[in-house]
């Protein structure tokens, strides 16, 4: 009987013939925590009476959620992380370095075939480069730091076959929003989503990250893709590690398979207050917007910034609308600087802020006021998500956000995309 990508990786890492439904204890290739989850893990690590992490080279901690610190309470938690990182000799990324899910692949920590846990729900992002990566809480993180292993229930798989090529002005963000709207927020709960087909093949690796990033928004445990030449080249450009890619068997068993034709897809927008509340942009066009956000682990990469800058170049955002741009990492910010993209954003009227998660998670850097509408490239629009439970959050692609802030209302970006 054939195996899915998830079954193959979990078999390899557990030394067992792992099938959906089995429980296995598997070796971890990489373990990551951020500043919202690491302090509790450090506390649990001490309570578990551990003194050393299993392998400092396979561990990273990142300060990105409240970065730089907006409050003294946060500063103290950051201090605890720095002390732990120094003592353990682990990889450590401080303020300004970037968002954890950008840094892990960009800095070469993650390679195809890896088994990765991260104490952040969007750890599923690295599925785009063929790694089984999944989000855990702080106590599982502590256990992983100590043992270098974790127990897993081998997930069933949900295969998305995406036929056709996305039209101009329609991006991977629109595609994943559409899929989440279709299968709903718990449509793939506890499953390994596998995304494939010619639409995926045609996307750049950067665009693919956006899809895997949002697998959790359909409840999935991971969002896997097979590796092609683009994946291999991308990983080789970022990592020195040797790797072998993992392909599903032709006779692999899927709990569910859905096929889509994406060639006529419109730009999509998720409406307040759930990610699966999705409409084509034409149905929400004209909704007034007071703030736009471009960035986050979903859409803060250099290609995203190029798309947004392409629309904003030589234009000014609406005078009653704000725009916040947070590049996903220091490297992305430097590249955007070199290409003149930051100049375009600043000239257009945007506030360019430190690489990090701030605006998306409501810690700082752009909390909306009561009754305001925000359009963001982030992955969540829950009530209160951005720090105010009386604000309304819409989600869209970088192009949709850029076009919308020009007019102060939700705008179809297609006429602005060459």
């Amino acid at each position, binding site marked *: 009987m054939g195996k899915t990508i998830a079954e193959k990786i979990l078999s390899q890492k557990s030394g067992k013939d792992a099938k959906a439904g089995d429980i296995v204890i598997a070796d971890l290739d990489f373990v990551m925590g951020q500043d*919202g989850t690491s302090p509790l893990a450090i506390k649990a690590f001490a*309570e*578990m009476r551990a003194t050393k992490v299993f392998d400092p080279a396979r561990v990273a901690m990142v300060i990105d959620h409240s970065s730089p610190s907006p409050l003294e309470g946060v500063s103290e938690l950051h201090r605890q992380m720095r002390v732990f990182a120094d003592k353990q000799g682990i990889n450590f990324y401080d303020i300004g370095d970037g968002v954890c899910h950008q840094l892990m692949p960009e800095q070469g920590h993650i390679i195809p075939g890896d088994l990765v846990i991260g104490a952040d729900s969007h750890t599923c992002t690295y599925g785009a480069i063929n790694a089984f990566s999944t989000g855990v*809480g702080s*106590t599982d993180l502590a256990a992983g730091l100590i043992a270098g292993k*974790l127990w897993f229930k081998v997930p069933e798989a949900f295969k998305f076959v995406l036929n056709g090529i996305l039209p101009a002005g329609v991006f991977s963000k629109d595609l994943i929003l559409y899929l989440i709207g279709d299968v709903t927020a*718990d449509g793939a709960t506890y499953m390994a989503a596998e995304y494939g087909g010619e639409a995926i093949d045609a996307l750049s690796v950067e665009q693919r990250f956006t899809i895997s990033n949002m697998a959790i928004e359909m409840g999935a445990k991971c969002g896997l893709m097979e590796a092609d030449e683009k994946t291999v080249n991308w990983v080789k450009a970022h990592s020195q590690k040797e790797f072998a890619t993992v392909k599903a068997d032709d006779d692999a068993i899927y709990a569910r398979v859905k096929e889509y034709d994406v060639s006529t897809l419109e730009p999509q927008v998720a409406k307040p207050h759930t990610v699966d509340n999705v409409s084509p942009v034409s149905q929400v066009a004209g909704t007034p917007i007071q703030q736009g956000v471009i960035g986050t682990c979903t859409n803060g990469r250099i290609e995203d910034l190029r798309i947004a800058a392409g629309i904003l170049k030589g234009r000014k955002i609406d005078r009653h609308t704000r725009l916040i741009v947070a590049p996903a990492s220091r490297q992305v910010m430097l590249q955007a600087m070199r290409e003149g993209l930051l100049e375009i954003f600043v000239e257009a009227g945007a506030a360019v802020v430190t690489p990090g998660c701030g605006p998306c998670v409501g*810690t700082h850097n752009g909390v909306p006021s009561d009754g305001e509408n925000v359009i963001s490239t982030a992955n969540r629009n829950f009530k*209160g998500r951005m720090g105010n439970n009386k604000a309304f959050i819409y989600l869209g692609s970088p192009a949709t956000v850029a076009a919308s802030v020009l007019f102060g209302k939700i705008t179809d970006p297609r006429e602005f995309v060459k």
Partner: protein
Amino acid sequence: MELKGRVHKFGDDINTDYIISGRHKFKTLDMKELAKHVMEDLDPDFYAKVAKGDFIVGGRNFGCGSSREQAPLAIINADISAVVAKSFARIFYRNCINTGLPVIECDTDQIDEGDELQIDLQAGVLHNRTKGIDIKIAPLPSVMLQILSEGGLIEHFKKYGTFNFN
């Protein structure tokens, strides 16, 4: 373990941002303080209403969203004894077991706000005292049952130093 208390009923897709908002959770590891803000965005008076041992009851996909373990910890520190829902999001479910908060999967259509419940985890039965009915609960995987019965994953690691399942 037998649990008794009153029901605080919520709907489908209760995410961990609603359980404990990012506004609060990044600031402190003081869970007693975070507990005061549990469910605040959905019901500002929630914390004041809870009596020791009460239950949170939800619909489908309870605990979806962020991996924050502050969510189960804040629920525990608000003196809630268990969360009952039709289905749970996977990270939240694991976090509850790891922190020692019982999570009960069953049909919640016949459980309403204010109902009195009695739950026998060993026997796998939820008794709705207000309505006089028994509701069958889905069994926990053995690994999770062991972690929960040992008081959570920290206690498991204190005892064995690594994963050690029966």
